[in-house]
């Protein structure tokens, strides 16, 4: 479904990704783990079109998407819940969600998606008319995921959904991520620093170190891998 081949990304003269190749098949949950500064966010930003690769190829469902502007890529069915959540604090929770359906002209579809998202995260329905900025960190994360789902994606990119969130809510959010995959059939690429929880949820994983993919395997194998155990599960 999604294929990255030898992708190089630079910030000015500094190279952040070195020949990154990875693939995500339809229906999978794939995780990309790595420590702070490894290039995980850069990878997702590049897939979403916020950053252009200097070399390499990205294809989604057989179509080249590298170099496309972000708003086009959303329309093809790739949504992202960005690092740090970045919800619109001055819009209400409901308006944040509706913003996700910006490209959808069919009102009944928007309503259907809204019902689905609010069934998934009932807290968002309870707080529908509150400004987004008044939510707790965990609720904001749910809102960011919900907003991404409102675009009606086939592939959902999640950037560190556990970052800075109370452990109980992390559990809840990861349960919902699994449901999104199972019940809605949405393919998921999950970026995490918290390797424990990511490797438990995903089927396959990649390990990113200073801009390079150094390992790739099924998650149970990665969990047993001594290298991974020492660096990420210690």
């Amino acid at each position, binding site marked *: 479904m999604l294929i990255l081949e030898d992708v190089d990304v630079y910030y000015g003269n500094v190279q952040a990704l070195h020949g990154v190749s990875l693939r995500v098949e339809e229906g999978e949950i794939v995780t990309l783990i790595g420590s702070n500064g490894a290039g995980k966010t850069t990878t997702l930003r590049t897939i979403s079109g*916020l950053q252009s690769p200097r070399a390499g190829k990205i294809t989604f469902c057989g179509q080249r998407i590298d170099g496309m502007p972000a708003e086009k890529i*959303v329309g093809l069915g790739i949504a992202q819940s960005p690092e740090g959540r*970045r*919800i619109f604090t001055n819009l209400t929770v409901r308006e944040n969600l509706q913003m996700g359906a910006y490209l959808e002209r069919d009102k009944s579809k928007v309503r259907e998606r809204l019902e689905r998202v609010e069934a998934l995260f009932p807290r968002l329905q309870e707080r529908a008319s509150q400004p987004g900025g008044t939510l707790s960190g965990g609720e904001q994360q749910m809102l960011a995921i919900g907003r*991404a789902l409102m675009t009606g994606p086939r592939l959902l990119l999640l950037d560190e959904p556990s970052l800075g969130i109370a452990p109980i809510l992390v559990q809840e959010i990861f349960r919902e991520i699994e449901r999104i995959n199972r019940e809605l059939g949405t393919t998921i690429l999950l970026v995490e620093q918290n390797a424990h929880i990511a490797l438990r949820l995903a089927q396959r994983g990649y390990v990113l170190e200073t801009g390079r993919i150094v390992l790739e395997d099924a998650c149970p194998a990665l969990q047993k891998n001594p290298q991974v155990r020492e660096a990420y599960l210690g």
Partner: protein
Amino acid sequence: MDAGVLQLPLAIKLDLWLTDQVILVGLFALLALSLNLINGWGRMFSLGHHGFYFLGAYGAAWLTAALPTGLPGALVFVTTCLFGMLVATAGGLLIGVPCLRLRGDYLAIATLGFGEGVRLVISNADVRVPPGFTVPRVLFEVNSSNLLMYRLLFLGIVILLVVGVVLLIRNYVRSSAGRAMLAVAQDERAAGLLGINPTGSKVLVFLMGSAIAGLAGAVYAHYSGSVAPKDFEFVLMVTIFLIVVLGGLGSISGCILAAFLLRATERGLGMVGGVVSEWWQVEFALILILLMIFRPNGIFGPRELTDVIRDWRQRRRAGSKA
């Protein structure tokens, strides 16, 4: 005309003066509302709004003079106002499209250069002494006996336009495109991830703001009967900006109230100051300083008068229960 006005009874003179003041307040309200669309709701920092006002006024004045005489007055009025709006929008397109692709403060510098440059270029190209246009009266011939009628007519037009622009902004902010504007204003990247084209959204808001300023300029040209470059200097931009900041970025009622307040204090100081016409500089500096200290977000902040009244009532009710 002036000699005739001097002989009018005091009551009529007062009426004339009052309508004139309210019309000017209305024009300032239009300018401030349209700048607020760009600076307040859109969070783009534009310093060239006086340039769009200028383009609207000059566009309308030029076309009015260029059209053959004998056409129906109302038709000429509407056509030239639309033309002024169009010229201002074209100016907005010219400066907005290249600048709004960039992020940050380029816009402030570029629009400042635009607002000043467009006036300087046109006034230097103007060979008349002093430079400027006399705008033929198209609605009806004005003399001292019907001057009040004329002003009341423009008062009606200006009030209608202010109401129209208020409704436009209210509906826009609540529409899908308007919420996209608010989203882009807060976080362009996050908005892009939802399929919003940030540049497109910003250009649209910028053009709406330029068009309204151009319309205000065109109405001003018809109302005053003459336009001259000296009416569009940077102090005008400072005034509009001050109204927006005073009224609150993103507040409609604040903007209108601030236009009134600024005009009223300016007049008041003008009377106190007598011949010293530079009092406005002291006034503006003072208002800005007081604002920074007491209301850094403007009179109502981003809220509306109605919100403030509702909160105040709720607090009073809560207070009486306790």
